């Protein structure tokens, strides 16, 4: 049966499980603070993640100031610099991107898009946020201990991470490891919710192949997280033991500054295997939700079904599975058995195939579409370009012999920023512009949005594109300053200055966005019901923003896939998932199309 054809009301099986029993809050504290409502939890995750992300953004300005204008800022010394790069990296990857995509977007979108009232384990879901907040606070605490936060690089490689030649090797590294362990505990709690809700709490008629790709992306990413984070957890525990108890999991015999240490027999490469067994799936934990969300943004704003939905789903699943067998492409120069290089190079380049298919399908959705250049659409297009750029440089690095000269250079820095820092952030921004009207009932300001978009997209591209070429030249990463070399021309320093200036401009432009977020709460144009005219269930709620329980008295019933845009034979260019086939024409008589039949009112 063709997956995109609608089903008759009679064919839809009854619900398998009883409705989620909601907790009904009665006090302000249980409504907005210790809330079990996934929508509130989503906003809590998002605000916390964005706040700590802004701290990391400011850190990146300080790093760029040092790189662009070395010796100009005496308070940025080598100690501080290495602490900055470490905390910037760890915060951005884990505490911002992972938390925002899974904890923020996952919590908000999953129940709404699958047609459930809330997550299946609301109490544990609530706990997951507070554990995440605790993890953030422990991380921040590392700034205030003697020695300051760790400066071991976000990859925390031993032995240097716990030895005295590295900043923060007293308390900083321990707090980092504890914070990561807490984060993982919190994310396991949340992750179980996301997976089980998608599997068990979908509305009647919402088969897996009718789920929007946003959900597929978040769902598969959560499975990856549940399976991959334990590797980081055990690595963190073992490193903590090495530091605190003097064990030697990762510590061979070491002579540190002429002193014989009492470690022996451990393997630093073991840590790298554990870290990257987590670390590579981690980048897909960030990328897959972005892939899913951008598919939906393009569909809605080009009024066209996502091209090749089935392949897109399979691509997400295959990328997720393959992501577990590519990790050692981060280790070609680690000194591991060189024959591993053949295996991991092959798997790494294989994973490029389903990824490329996704890019083709996004592009083919634009083809023969009806493209509205709304701000979410602009961000989606910018994502495709920066992701293709970043993904392509990954092909360079995936080939072991090409990785040898490029490893640990600015080429790697440029690659991962483009593919993880620029592309997914563009999706996050586009997604916020897209779903803000649902969350608040108001539209974000258009003019401010366009300024924000063009400066961010073109600026970020101008920051990271040139850095690839510095890497080709041989400029290393994680260098406090270059000093004298025979092979780096003075023009490279000028380029660093240019990149710093652009980075500061792009950084400050985010203030425009923050201002827009706050001011539109009060002054934004009223959005009304389903302003983007989307088919997915989150836009078909009776109240905007959705109230407690999401869908009013009765849960929706789903009759079709999520991409019934511009279906021939219908006046309207979209059909929501929950409109019964026999009611479509009636709804197209000029009335608002709404599954529940109620006109939308902004929430009180």
């Amino acid at each position, binding site marked *: 049966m063709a997956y995109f054809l609608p089903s008759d009301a009679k064919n839809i099986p009854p619900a398998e499980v009883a409705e989620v029993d909601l907790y009904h809050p009665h006090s302000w504290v249980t409504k907005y603070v210790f809330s079990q409502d996934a929508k509130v939890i989503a906003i809590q995750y998002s605000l916390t993640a964005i706040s700590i992300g802004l701290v990391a953004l400011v850190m990146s300005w300080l790093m760029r100031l040092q790189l662009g204008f070395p010796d100009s800022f005496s308070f940025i010394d080598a100690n501080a610099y290495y602490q900055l790069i470490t905390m910037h990296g760890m915060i951005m990857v884990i505490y911002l991107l992972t938390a925002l995509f899974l904890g923020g977007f996952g919590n908000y979108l999953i129940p709404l898009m699958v047609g459930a009232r809330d997550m299946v384990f609301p109490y544990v879901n609530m706990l997951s946020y507070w554990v995440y907040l605790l993890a953030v606070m422990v991380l921040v605490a590392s700034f205030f201990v003697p020695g300051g936060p760790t400066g071991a*690089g976000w990859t925390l490689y031993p032995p240097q991470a716990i030895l005295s030649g*590295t900043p923060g090797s007293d308390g900083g590294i321990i707090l980092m490891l504890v914070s990561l362990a807490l984060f993982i505990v919190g994310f396991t709690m949340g992750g179980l919710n996301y997976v089980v809700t998608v599997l068990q709490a979908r509305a009647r008629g919402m088969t897996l192949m009718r789920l929007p790709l946003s959900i597929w992306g978040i769902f598969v990413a959560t499975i990856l997280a549940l399976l991959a984070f334990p590797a980081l957890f055990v690595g963190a525990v073992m490193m903590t033991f090495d530091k605190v108890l003097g064990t030697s999991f990762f510590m061979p015999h070491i002579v540190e500054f002429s002193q014989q240490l009492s470690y022996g027999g451990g393997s630093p490469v073991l840590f790298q295997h554990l870290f990257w067994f987590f670390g590579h799936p981690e980048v897909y934990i960030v990328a897959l939700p972005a892939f899913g969300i951008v598919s939906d943004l393009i569909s809605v704003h080009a009024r066209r079904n996502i091209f090749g939905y089935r392949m897109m789903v399979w691509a997400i699943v295959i990328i997720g599975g393959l992501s577990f067998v590519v990790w050692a492409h981060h280790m070609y120069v680690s*000194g591991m058995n060189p024959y591993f290089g053949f295996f991991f190079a092959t798997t790494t380049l294989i994973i490029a195939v389903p990824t490329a298919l996704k890019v083709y399908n996004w592009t083919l959705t634009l083809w023969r579409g009806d493209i509205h250049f709304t701000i979410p659409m602009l961000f989606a297009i910018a994502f495709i370009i920066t992701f293709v750029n970043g993904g392509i440089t990954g092909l360079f690095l995936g*080939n072991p012999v090409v990785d040898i000269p490029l490893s640990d250079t600015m080429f790697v820095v440029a690659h991962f920023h483009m593919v993880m820092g620029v592309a997914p952030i563009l999706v996050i921004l586009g997604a916020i512009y897209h779903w803000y009207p649902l969350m608040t009932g108001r539209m974000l300001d258009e003019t401010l949005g366009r300024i924000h978009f063009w400066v961010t997209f073109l600026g970020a591209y101008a920051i990271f594109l040139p850095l690839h070429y510095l890497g080709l030249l041989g400029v290393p990463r994680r260098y406090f300053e270059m000093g004298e070399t025979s092979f780096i021309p003075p023009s490279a320093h000028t380029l660093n200055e240019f990149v710093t200036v652009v980075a500061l401009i792009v950084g400050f432009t985010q203030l425009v966005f923050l201002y827009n977020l706050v001011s539109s709460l009060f002054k934004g144009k009223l959005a009304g019901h389903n302003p983007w005219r989307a088919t997915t269930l989150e836009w078909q709620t009776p109240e905007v923003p959705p109230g407690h329980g999401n869908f009013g008295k009765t849960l929706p019933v789903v009759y079709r896939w999520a991409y019934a845009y511009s279906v021939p034979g219908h006046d309207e260019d979209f059909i929501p998932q929950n409109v019964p086939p026999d009611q479509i024409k009636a709804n197209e008589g000029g009335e608002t199309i709404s599954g529940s039949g109620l006109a939308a009112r902004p929430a009180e």
Partner: protein
Amino acid sequence: MVVALLLLLVVVGTVVFHFMSPWWWTPIASNWGYIDNTIIITFWVTGVVFVAIVAFMAYCAFRYRHRKGSRAEYEPENTKMEVWLTVLTTVGIAALLAPGLFVWNQFITVPEEASEVEVMTQQWQFSFRYPGEDGLLGTTDPANIDSDNPFGMNQNDPNGQDDILIEGDEVHLPLGKPVKVLLRSIDVLHDFYVPQFRAKMDTVPGMVTYFWVTPTRTGTFDILCFELCGIGHYAMRGKVVVEEESDYQAWLAEQQTFAQQSARSGGGVNDAAIPVLSEAAAIAEQGITQ
């Protein structure tokens, strides 16, 4: 319209930047030109794909922009097109992987006639050891390291007696001869990289790693540490001097062997090493106290 033009600007700008960029790899001084060639192939394959995709997007942004009365086509999937795209992509990927793995095989297969040189890394300096007349490096053990024996040589191993120990940060290599660079570390991860050689490998305490290279032109080149090793990482430098065989042999003859250094009173620390060691200690002091 504006959007389509700006997308075109991005792709044209990228291509122009690539061809006009003064920042390109530094001229090669080793046999690993194959690596450079593989990079060129990768740039061509991926460059064509990048231009094609972004230019196509710019075209779609123009041709399919919303105008009054426009409507999208409804086509859930097109299996034939998707299969074709998969096949073409796989062929392109294989075209990148095959030469890459071929050269990787060469990279890890050391030629039989290669001589050996050992690089010893520590926070934050490079030291070097040659096998001497017998062509064999003596065994070492970090437990033996002390001020009299900075390389941790095993006194009992006769092969080590004629090893030439260089504690300064300058290593010499003969032109045109393959050399297997053995890498070891006594404290943390480091890396030995000469950009002109294109070859590097991390040094790992508790292991001996390697890469091999044949220097193909004379000159003095920078060695940089290429794996974060603590606060002095950026200052951990050295020099490699590639010279004609005769000059190389002459230089080698002037260096002291382990036996000669042990015979000197107080142990064998070359004078050149003292400023480097104290600089490393100074960095440690200023950097890690708070």
